[in-house]
């Protein structure tokens, strides 16, 4: 069975990835720009795609630009930022209806390519600067976006854990940048940075849908062309080993305590031990059959949510749970005991099989969406490896109990962060 058939082709300055499938009623274009995560550029990069998507030279206002998208049967334009290990990735995606499902048969895909090219290569620029009004508005929105993490306590406590844990590493930077750096950005400096990013970033274009390779290639070749480059790579993640566990406690006016625990896995995507690490995480806390769910929630009745997840490119594992402030010690102890159990090989054949089946299911489900396909394939760009989904699943299937135990032993506790409510009488 071929799970995804991806064809990759080198273009001028970027790679074109085409995944042909007939299962969707829409076609999707995803543009990715990747650069090392750095304090000096993180805020510029966070602002950039939001300015690009607000207007362009042919559609100089948001109203005009969005009206044009509505006209194209509500084509969507969506921008996003993410951290993948020590990289900062800008994503711009366009999704458009496949006209074969419409009564109006006007071809739409070419228009989507043209539109993406317009956004990327014909921005609303005069005299070497982005439109000042647009930049001003988007700076305001960016500040609000950065600030909003404070109001969602689940996101906030996760962000704070990473900030504490990776204090002297680029990974501690917020994906949306630093609030105090926003005001330093000018329409000129942002445009200048964009020119630089177009020359230096690693660029990838994904085309997912009922598209043949040759058509995609000719559209992309005609509309998007950049200089050749050898993209900057981030310095290898070193990940400090702590002598003693870092404990951080913060008090706020909230009802539920948020417990977030960070570990170093010392294994990243592409390492031979990565598959065993994934199975380990699944048995330990990834699912609703896992040890954490069973022991923290079902047995001790301490939490509604408790789970662990991996940051595959950085080599981190995070446990998160919402608990009553007074149950901190009990919850932390149970979580520690469960990790010890994993290190001692205290898990059954059945837990292993169950977890492998569920991870395999999860991977196959992920690639049922265009977005999921890109997510899975992009791991290879970030890591510089070539691992197909089939290899991923086969390797995971072969993982033995010993390998899982070994992976567990490599996991070391780094930081325990607790966002606690104000206790009565204090």
């Amino acid at each position: 069975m071929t799970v995804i058939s991806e064809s990759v082709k080198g273009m001028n300055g970027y790679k074109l990835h085409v995944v042909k499938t007939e299962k969707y009623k829409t076609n999707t274009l995803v543009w990715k720009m990747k650069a090392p995560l750095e304090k000096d550029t993180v805020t510029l990069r966070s602002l950039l795609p939001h300015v690009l998507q607000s207007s362009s030279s042919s559609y100089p206002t948001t109203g005009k630009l969005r009206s044009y998208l509505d006209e194209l049967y509500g084509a969507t334009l969506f921008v996003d930022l993410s951290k993948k290990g020590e990289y900062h990735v800008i994503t711009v995606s366009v999704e458009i209806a496949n006209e074969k499902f419409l009564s109006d048969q006007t071809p739409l895909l070419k228009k989507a390519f043209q539109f993406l090219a317009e956004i990327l290569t014909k921005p609303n620029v005069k005299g070497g600067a982005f439109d000042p009004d647009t930049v001003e508005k988007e700076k305001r929105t960016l500040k609000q976006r950065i600030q909003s993490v404070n109001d969602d306590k689940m996101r906030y406590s996760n962000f704070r854990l990473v900030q504490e844990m990776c204090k002297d590493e680029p990974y501690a930077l917020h994906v949306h940048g630093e609030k105090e750096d926003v005001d330093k950005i000018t329409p000129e400096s942002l445009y200048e940075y964009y020119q630089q990013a177009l020359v230096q970033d690693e660029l990838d274009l994904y085309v997912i849908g009922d598209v043949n390779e040759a058509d995609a290639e000719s559209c992309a070749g005609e509309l998007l062309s950049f200089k050749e480059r050898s993209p900057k790579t981030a310095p290898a993640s070193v990940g400090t080993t702590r002598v003693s566990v870092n404990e951080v406690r913060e008090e706020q006016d909230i009802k539920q305590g948020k417990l977030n625990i960070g570990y170093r896995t010392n294994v990243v995507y592409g390492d031979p031990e990565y598959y065993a690490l994934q199975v380990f995480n699944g048995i330990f806390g990834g699912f609703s059959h896992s040890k954490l769910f069973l022991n923290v929630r079902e047995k001790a009745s301490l939490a509604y949510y408790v789970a662990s997840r991996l940051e595959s490119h950085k080599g981190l594992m995070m446990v998160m749970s919402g608990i009553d402030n007074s149950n901190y010690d009990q919850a932390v102890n149970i979580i520690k005991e469960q990790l010890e159990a994993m290190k001692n090989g205290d898990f059954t054949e059945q837990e292993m099989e169950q977890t492998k089946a569920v991870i395999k299911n999860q991977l196959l489900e992920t690639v049922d969406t265009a977005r999921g396909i890109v997510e899975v394939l992009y791991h290879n760009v970030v890591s510089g490896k070539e691992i197909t989904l089939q290899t991923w699943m086969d390797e995971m299937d072969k993982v033995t109990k010993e390998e899982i135990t070994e992976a567990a032993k490599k996991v070391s506790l780094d930081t325990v962060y607790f966002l606690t409510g104000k206790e009565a009488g204090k």
Partner: protein
Amino acid sequence: MEKITFEQLQEELFYEKLDNGLDVYILPKKGFNKTYATFTTKYGSIDNHFLPPGKNEFVKVPDGIAHFLEHKLFEKEDGDVFQQFSKQGASANAFTSFTRTAYLFSSTSNVEKNLETLIDFVQEPYFTEKTVEKEKGIIGQEITMYDDNPDWRLYFGLIENMYKNHPVKIDIAGTIESISHITKDMLYECYETFYHPSNMLLFIVGPVDPDQIMSQVRTNQNKKDYNEIPEIKRRFEEEPAEAAEKKKVLEMNVQTSKCLVGIKSKNAAQSGKDMLKNELSLNVLLDILFGKSSDHYSTLYNEGLIDDTFSFDYTQEQGFGFAMVGGDTNDPDRLADTLKKMLLDAREKGAISQETLDRTKKKKIGAFLRAVNSPEYIANQFTRYAFNEMDLFDVVPTLESITLKDVETAAGDLISEDRFTVCQIVPKK
């Protein structure tokens, strides 16, 4: 088994009503890895006043019991059903809304086994005093989690403002106090009232053989004893047309304020085609007024009154309906006043051009195509539509038929000063 073909969409839907009253729908999806199935009862948080089968008196049950029951169905004498599903490579879940409780799984292998597990676990309740008590701790944490979530508080605060009596104003999970009164006997009473197959719908979407799946479901149901189809009697108090409260301001531990403007619908008794037309017309209207291509959106954004959290929606079910518009803002009062004025003007001045309407309809049609890429969307929305006597696959033809007159009528029906309400979250002083 009946086969319904949707030529434009290139989809086929298979349907059968079983002898015990269960509606079964199967939508084969070629090329997908995953099969997604939902088993849904028309029973949600609003169904808190009813006549249990074989009883003479109506009962009122504690707030949050439908959601509590949803949690408890997963637990069986020999452990919990999540374990069973994951052994079979599936992921399972459930959710409770105002009007529905849905149980679901998705899997890329062992579909028959997983389907059997889904149907059987929902149809074999096992409640004990001990497990009910244990669940109170877990759901207590779920409630506390939502208590700290400003968007959730804003949303429910707005609904609470609109309704005086209708149970839609009750938080779906209830409160720690209300769930403390729940007993195993109450759970059985709710279960027996609302979980008869004749009140339920099973939807399966994925790379499946419809004949085989239908025959499996038929065999499963024939083995079970569901002879009598009981009539469900629900009771709702009279609800005034106007909003119960004009405004509510909640102080929370936030840095950015939030503001939603709501309008209570007077068309809440609709169902079927009328409801579909009204709901779609209002969603078209809101898109014309507040979508990213609208003048209002530009005005609000340029003035710094909204950011990218801004959203709008109209939703309607049998017995309640409301529009809501808003998001994060630096000036909640000015945003509320501006939105109200924009809405009232839309009613007074009309002034929507045919061109704008056509463009918005195109946008909505494209959005529907995008949505039906998702098996989850198809199963969940088809069920919601069916429970309101509508057909999900009528969306595109209905959108195509909407005229300026329809939008104006819907706007005239909805927008009225006395049905407006505002809810705001502001930083604690």
